[in-house]
């Protein structure tokens, strides 16, 4: 196979070069243009659906507004009001807190589930079956999955009435619903799979001989996990982390529903501004959020070079 290929290429190139006259010029020009044409569909798509919208947001973020109109202008008040308000900082802190908690919990759950699937289930068909079982909750809308926690955790909800009936508590536990607890719980529930899948994928590529070699060299079970499997799963962990962190950073509906409107996130702040027709303020907020999330992703990619490992 390799031999025929190497033979074909040198044979082909000279024949192209020896083509006489205008044909050769044409072919050369074509060869120069071809890569651009090949890249054009993606480039056009990205420009139309990514670059232009983001530039629009950037431009609008410098506009002025009153209660009904957006006024084209160049003012820095949107950024000034945003960055000098202690509420912005508190909200960012709160959102980062949610993201960090969700990330840590989904990482532990995701790693454990993926490890179990990849190394403890021997048959491939069972692996697939159990993997599909993990995705079952995702067959319903995430709003429904979120809202179904409300009657479960409520003051007179299933959990509280069960605990009271069992005599474990005499007063319903108030912190279960409309609290940071319920917000993080819903985030973990919604996003755990995004951690499981890439980590599982990475683990499946690990050469089993490495595990055997580690054991032969005398490594204990936890040492194999810590020194062999964890480092080799890094790309999966990084991809999963990017998913979870960006999803939580940009979310607004989970925070609103699960905190009973009591807690804030940046997404919710933007949604509020949009609903009050304060598009420039929302745009400024979106630009800052984009920058922060890009920095977070860049930091993650500094730790793990996904491209090298894929």
């Amino acid at each position: 196979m390799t031999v025929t290929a190497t033979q074909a290429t040198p044979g082909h190139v000279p024949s192209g070069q020896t083509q006489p006259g205008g044909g050769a010029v044409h072919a050369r020009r074509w060869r120069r243009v071809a890569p651009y044409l090949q890249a054009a569909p993606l480039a056009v798509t990205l420009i139309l659906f990514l670059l232009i919208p983001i530039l629009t947001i950037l431009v609008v973020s410098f506009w002025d507004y009153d209660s009904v109109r957006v006024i084209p202008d160049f003012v820095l008040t949107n950024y000034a009001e945003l960055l000098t308000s202690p509420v912005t900082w508190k909200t960012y802190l709160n959102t980062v807190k949610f993201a960090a908690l969700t990330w840590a919990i989904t990482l532990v759950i995701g790693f454990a589930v993926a490890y179990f699937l990849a190394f403890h289930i021997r048959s491939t068909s069972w692996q697939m079956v159990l993997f599909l079982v993990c995705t079952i909750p995702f067959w319903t809308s995430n709003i429904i999955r979120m809202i179904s926690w409300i009657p479960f955790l409520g003051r007179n909800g299933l959990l509280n009435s069960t605990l009271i009936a069992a005599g474990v508590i005499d007063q319903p536990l108030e912190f279960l619903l409309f609290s940071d607890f319920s917000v993080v719980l819903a985030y973990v529930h919604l996003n755990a799979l995004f951690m499981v899948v890439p980590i599982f994928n990475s683990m499946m590529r690990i050469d089993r001989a490495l595990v055997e070699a580690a054991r032969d060299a005398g490594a204990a079970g936890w040492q194999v996990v810590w020194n062999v499997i964890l480092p080799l799963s890094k790309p999966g962990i990084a991809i999963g982390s990017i998913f979870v962190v960006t999803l939580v950073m940009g979310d607004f509906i989970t925070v609103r529903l699960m905190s009973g409107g009591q807690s804030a996130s940046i997404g919710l702040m933007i949604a509020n501004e949009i609903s009050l027709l304060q598009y420039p303020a929302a745009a400024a907020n979106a630009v800052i959020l984009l920058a922060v999330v890009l920095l977070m992703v860049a930091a993650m990619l500094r730790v793990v070079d996904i491209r090298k490992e894929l």
Partner: protein
Amino acid sequence: MSDTRSGSPATTGVSRRALLKGTAAAAGVAVGSGAITGFPTIWAQNIKNITLRQIGTGVSNLNAVADKVKADLGFTLQMTALDSDAVTQRAATQPKSYDIADIEYWIAKKIFPAGVIQPMDVGKLKNFDKIVPIFVNGKLTPSSAIAQGTAPHSVGFVEGKDSTKFAKSPTQWMTLIPTIYNADTLGIRPDLVGRPISSWKDLLDPAFKGKASLLNIPSIGIMDAAMVCEAMGAVTYGDKGNMTKEEIDKTLAIMTEAKKAGQFRAFWKSFDESVNLMSSGEVIIQSMWSPAVAAVRAKGIPCVYQPLKEGYRAWGGGLGLAKHLTGLELDAAYEYINWYLSGWVGAYLNRQGYYSAVLDTAKQHMSADEWAFWMEGKPAKTDILNPEGKVMEKAGAVRDGGSFEERMGRVACWNAVMDEDRYMVRKWNEFIAA
């Protein structure tokens, strides 16, 4: 193999082209015939081809109304229901996307200056002189005081046909035709509060810690907050509907303190959220809308729309005509508005616990018992049905708050948009995020 392959796409190509040609011809014929049959010059038949697009809140954007319009007037009314923020947004930013805007008066104050709505000639309104005076001069009876906030009459008229400046007294040009209004107060769970509730300040009573709620629509929520602070004696307002920065700060400082102390269980934004909070027992006292109280009661759960000694916070909505309406469509829109005030809709709205703008015509469409229950505050002689025919109140029940005059006569403040709107919204969001 390769022969058949290269052959078959060609055949499909031809047949597809033929098909397209055929379709185009058929479409042409259809358009042609449609133009011929749709040609009659008699106005009554012509109007049937008109479709008016109405946007508004779920409160009054009722499909029953659209069906009745089709039956009575012949043209099509297309309803889109949105929440009040989305209505404001749509009305102001996409004026071409609707023909009739069903908006609240405070929304009108925000969007009318943008020039997207055209005022109506009162000369073309048959029942103009019968409209409840609240919407004309602000006084329910000649002796009553004008409430604070964006009172409907203050944004009810403009100075001329093309003016966007609100007139101080009634003119020939009306901005919105009032359709629906009500007096709002706190909803309570009488079985769980454990004591009589008589004042707005009870919302912040520490006894209800973790069991209170407030609505999170800034321009309405701030009013409820102001009613509470005023009742507590903590803040004195010049005009609750147009607060100064200092008054806004004081009001929200009190609310923030209460929030941090855990007074509130949740903040709600939509009708169904308030119903769920109340019926699940998560919340036992909260700002509420009248049909939400009815919805809780319909589940067999006790809920009272508690009249309070400081009075009510009122709101009102109306129909506005989009600027782009002209000719036949404009005629149809006037026809619709005259029909709206002619009684059928009024009775429909009154039966839901709201009030209609022209009471005399609505009365003709209601039974004497219904009228006595809803409007005069008298005990029901028979079961009271809602517009869909479901029993809403048993015989013997009395409406919370009593008669029309008792309720609308005790309005302390109207929903409003303030001069310091932008500041207020920012502070409100800080309170919600605190």
